[in-house]
């Protein structure tokens, strides 16, 4: 296995707040890497630094061996790195299909318009939006909008997918269906870096887990090892009983 994405000494400050501090880790090809940590640990900031929405103060982001630090988001997308947003960002007046066509047109494949439709439709069907193709994105439920985020980024045929809390706000049935979709995405050969607060879900999905706390890496390793780590229990899980329960889930 070779590293698909390398984060090297990444730092970002907002005024006096150090959101991300000297963070380093790597995402291996074909794995699902879970990213967890308390609110304000710097997880979403890290995503913004990776895909160019924000420029880091120091450090490097290397994707497929190429330094992509600080290049604008649309070029990162073209390079094959797609993401979803924690707070959904639909192109509201456009239909589900049109949203996905934008993803397919301007993603890694850079498809011409007449060929994008097929890829877009396939992605929408894949996440289970086949009944909603012509629905304006603004009229979807929150679960629907989360699916749309996923479909749009999938339509881009990415190599690496960053998922920012795609399970938050979903009911248990929807969570289960979404987990299934994420597994199937990985089976298609897409590497996934996922932020999630639902512990059971991320422990069972991820091959490895990185724990962030106050912008720094607190722990890294297989789910079982991370859930057993006293530092992680203290900072995040808070309760040894919960940790034991999670170990049962792994």
């Amino acid at each position, binding site marked *: 296995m070779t590293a698909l994405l390398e984060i090297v000494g990444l730092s970002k400050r907002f005024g006096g707040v150090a959101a991300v501090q000297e963070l380093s880790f790597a995402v291996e090809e074909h794995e699902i890497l879970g990213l967890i940590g308390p609110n304000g640990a710097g997880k979403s900031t890290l995503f913004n630094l990776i895909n160019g929405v924000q420029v880091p103060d120091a450090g490097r982001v290397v994707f497929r061996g190429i330094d992509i630090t600080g290049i604008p988001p649309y070029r990162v997308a073209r390079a094959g790195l797609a993401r979803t947003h924690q707070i959904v*960002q639909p192109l509201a007046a456009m239909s589900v299909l049109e949203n996905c066509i*934008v993803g397919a047109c301007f993603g890694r494949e850079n498809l011409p318009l007449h060929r994008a439709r097929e890829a877009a439709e396939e992605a929408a069907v894949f996440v289970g939006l086949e009944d909603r193709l012509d629905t304006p994105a603004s009229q979807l439920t929150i679960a629907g909008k989360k699916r749309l985020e996923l479909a749009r980024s999938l339509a881009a045929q990415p190599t690496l997918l960053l998922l920012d809390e795609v399970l938050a706000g979903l009911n248990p049935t929807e969570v289960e269906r979404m987990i299934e979709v994420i597994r199937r995405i990985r089976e298609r050969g897409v590497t996934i870096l996922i932020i999630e607060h639902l512990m059971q879900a991320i422990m069972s999905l991820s091959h490895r887990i990185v724990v962030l706390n106050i912008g720094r890496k607190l722990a890294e390793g297989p789910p079982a090892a991370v859930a057993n780590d006293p530092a992680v229990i203290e900072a995040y899980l808070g309760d040894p009983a919960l940790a034991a329960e999670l170990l049962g889930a792994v």
Partner: protein
Amino acid sequence: MRVGTILGRPFFWIVAAAIALFVLAPTLGNNVELRESLLLAAVYITLASNLNLMLGYAGYVNFGSIVFFGLGGYFCIYFVNSLHWGLAPAAIAGGAAVSVLALLFGLGILRLRGAYFALATIGVNEAVMAFVTNFQPWGGGTGIYLSTELFKPLGGPAAALWVIYYILVGVMGLSLYLSYFVKLSKFGLGLLAIGQNEDAAAVLGVPAPRYKALAYCVSAFLPAIAGGLYFFKGAFIQPTDAFDLQFSTEAIVIVMLGGQGTVMGPALGAYLYEQLRGWLLTSDTFANFQLVIAGVLLLVIVLFAPGGLMGWLYGRWPRLKRVLE
């Protein structure tokens, strides 16, 4: 977008029919009064359709779009008057020069969004007007008068007015087809995505800075040519006419009235607005009463029908979307 698929769409032929109507209606019966009314409508349609590329597609409010029209007029008049070029090359060169300038302005002000961008576009117009007012080669504040001698190559003053009218109708037609082709293209899809949510569009891979600059640049070309023809026809240009913000405001009202983001809307809005204007002008009670109406119209549309006439029509008859695009 393949040419064959466009030729198969009814809307392509509706536009063609509208152009034919503009050509034939005043020609049959040699109706000069109708020609003058339709000439203004053609200018309004050109301005509104091109403004729509920014306002309707990319969601950027350009309050100073008239600067393209005025500068195009100045370049054309200067080329014709001082360099003794023919009207056609002068107008086209004027369009090209203004597009290049628009690209330069655009790279600067398109870093701004929302109200700040709108303010900056007014700033561009006012700055250009101040520059031209003090620019002696272009006549400064008094402007440039053309000798009627210059109409001779077009067959004398009377015939020249017909020639200019036909060319302007051509420019109008090109504006409508440009708007249509952009809307059906990948470029247009990118612009629409930017108009919906620029940050999300960029994350999806839409090269927003390049697309916006290109749209701003393209939307300058045909209005600049129309400006050249319009001021050549009047044989006179001065800064206060060329860079009149009132025209810009009217163009925005027209786009909103007809329906932003559609091809048909700005054309329909422009035609209706010109008819309304002509009708109100014949009343002696108010000078420029159409501006009062325009202001009220804009308020009512923004508050109650943001989709304009086309939005209302689509709401009533959704299938109309496939015919009147």
